[in-house]
């Protein structure tokens, strides 16, 4: 609590608190806020369950189409569920959270302290990302136990796909929040990415016209989805795997770079209400 290590007290100078400690502290506060916000809790806990159930019934109806595209029902339900978890638990939730913290000037206040901008955003994302990853593990385990055709053959690409997807969705939330006025409008601004990201989950790209398929391949979650699917089917060879992995990493990195200019999330709100100069 005091923030001093024994050595630093002996030297007479308190050691600067580390990035890890700062992010833990921010994550803890953000988790408390998540638990106290019913809308967020509903989005994070119940919505994924409902979407998986919906995905199951849709997949049953489309079983033939899916098979034509080389997908099994179990795999579609599981991978679709993972994408839904990322979109709901990480993307929607965090977009609203970032927008709310900016509106309340929490981000601006935090920027007056020791944490860097990256630490603030990452610390706040931590609870959602961890919650999403826990749900991913649960979902994969549950589908593997319940549906014979959804036992993953290659756990590593699956895990990497899930991890990179979650990180990418956190980054996307920062970008979306930069043009989202408040927590309520996040329900609108987060919809476009949400909808288009769901398409490749239930419609095999192979069945779509080439141009449309190419466009959908450019969606941020598609590389993650391909990685995760290969975890089940083992369908991707080394090169394809590397390509998908590389694409996912590049997307995460590019998203991060995009974030840098918008990171002063406080900026629009600050200037709007900072006030004096408008007087």
């Amino acid at each position, binding site marked *: 609590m005091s923030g001093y290590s024994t050595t630093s007290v002996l030297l007479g100078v308190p050691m*600067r608190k580390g990035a890890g400690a*700062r992010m833990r502290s921010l994550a803890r506060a953000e988790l408390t*806020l998540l638990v*106290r*916000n019913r809308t967020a809790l509903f989005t994070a806990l119940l919505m994924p369950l409902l979407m998986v159930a919906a995905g199951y019934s849709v997949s049953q109806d489309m079983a033939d189409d899916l098979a034509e595209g080389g997908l099994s029902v179990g795999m579609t339900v599981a991978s679709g569920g993972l994408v839904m978890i990322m979109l709901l638990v990480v993307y929607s939730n965090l977009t609203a959270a970032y927008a709310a913290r900016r509106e309340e000037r929490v981000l601006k*206040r935090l920027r007056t302290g020791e944490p860097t901008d990256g630490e603030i955003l990452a610390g706040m994302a931590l609870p959602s990302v961890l919650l999403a990853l826990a749900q991913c593990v649960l979902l994969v385990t549950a589908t593997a136990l319940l549906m014979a055709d959804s036992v993953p053959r290659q756990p590593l690409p699956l895990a990497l796909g899930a991890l990179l997807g979650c990180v990418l969705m956190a980054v996307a939330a920062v970008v979306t929040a930069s043009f989202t006025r408040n927590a309520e409008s996040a329900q609108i601004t987060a919809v476009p990415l949400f909808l288009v990201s769901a398409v490749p989950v239930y419609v095999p790209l192979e069945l779509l016209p080439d141009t449309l398929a190419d466009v959908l391949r450019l969606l941020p979650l598609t590389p993650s989805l391909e990685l995760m699917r290969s975890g089940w089917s083992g369908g991707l060879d080394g090169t394809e795997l590397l390509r998908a992995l590389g694409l996912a990493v590049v997307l995460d990195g590019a998203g991060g770079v995009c974030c840098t200019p918008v990171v002063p999330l406080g900026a629009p709100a600050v200037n709007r209400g*900072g006030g004096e*100069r408008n007087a």
Partner: protein
Amino acid sequence: MVERNLAKVEVAGSSPVVRSAERARSAADRALSRFPAPPRPGPARSASGPPRLTFVIPAGDSRHCRAGAGPGMLEDMSERVIEVTGLRRRYGGPGPEGFEAVRGMDFEVRRGEVYALLGTNGAGKTSTVELLEGLAPPTAGQVRVLGMDPCRERGAVRPRIGIMLQEGGFPSDLTVAETARMWAGCTTGARPVAEALDLVDLGRRAAVRVKQLSGGERRRLDLAMALLGRPEVLFLDEPTTGLDPQARHRTWELVAALREEGTTVLMTTHYLEEAEALADRLAIMREGRIVLSGTPAEVTAAQPSRIRFRLPEGMAPAELPLDLPAAVEGTRVEIRTRDLQADLTRLLLWARDAGAVLAGLDASSASLEETFLQVADGPAGADGADGAQGTDGTGGDGRVERVTA
């Protein structure tokens, strides 16, 4: 502070911290003795380092050093903790849609000083403070805080400063204690949460959600967070706006105690009595520039004093001593003077010789409020950029800095 005539003080190399004075426990230690200060990061205090020089400082010369943060420590009062040169800040583009909020500021704040920026709304106080806090880079000019660029070297500056913004910024669904815990987790050498809350009398409200706090309580929470890391430099943007009189005085006591402890404070305020009570030096801003600065006494001394009285029955204004500039309205006379004692003496001697009774005689120095109204509120251009109106000429002893554009 120091018993004998001379106090021997050793300085390690060019280190700004003057050390090893025999005894330097002050009122500050008593005020904050409940909360002993731990060592804090800052200018080197290690035993090694460059060879020591010995200076001799006359006792009572508090302009140069005074009781430091710990027992047996003096702080060098001449160290410039904040240095601002040619500071400008522009919002928007360079075109007509842009707005220049800060238009060339120069000032410095020495260690242990309380420096107040005064000005009406829109004078550029907050825009200036944000640059000092490192929240944004200046459009032009330079800011140094503790010898560093607060924006580019924020990693090194932030652990040593405390910031209180004009408006809070704490999640409304966290409790006071949770907020403080979050903030403490992000702060090097943080005080225990309970101690920080007690400093601002919020200990009993620890379990209350931020959204249920009154405006004044939120201000105090904000102040507590600014104090959490025992900062060397404290930035307070309108710290007492929205506080009730009791809480305001409590805050003043706290700032005074911190000052005694050696904390450097830069504050903005609307309240002139606040600046008068707390500030060692102050600057009055108008339209992004400092128009007048100095100690409160110097600043008010730059304004003419007033002598008021009513003309005796049947006496014509022309009979007054002619070399005194007087404004007469009916029988009311107001004389403005830069040398109150001499002119008042002359007036009274004249009145005695003339056998005149000056009813309602009143002589008073300018108050900070008068000065402020005179200087800060003038319409643009009405008194020219050289600020000649009202404060014509230079201030009395020449120590008042008149800033010309």
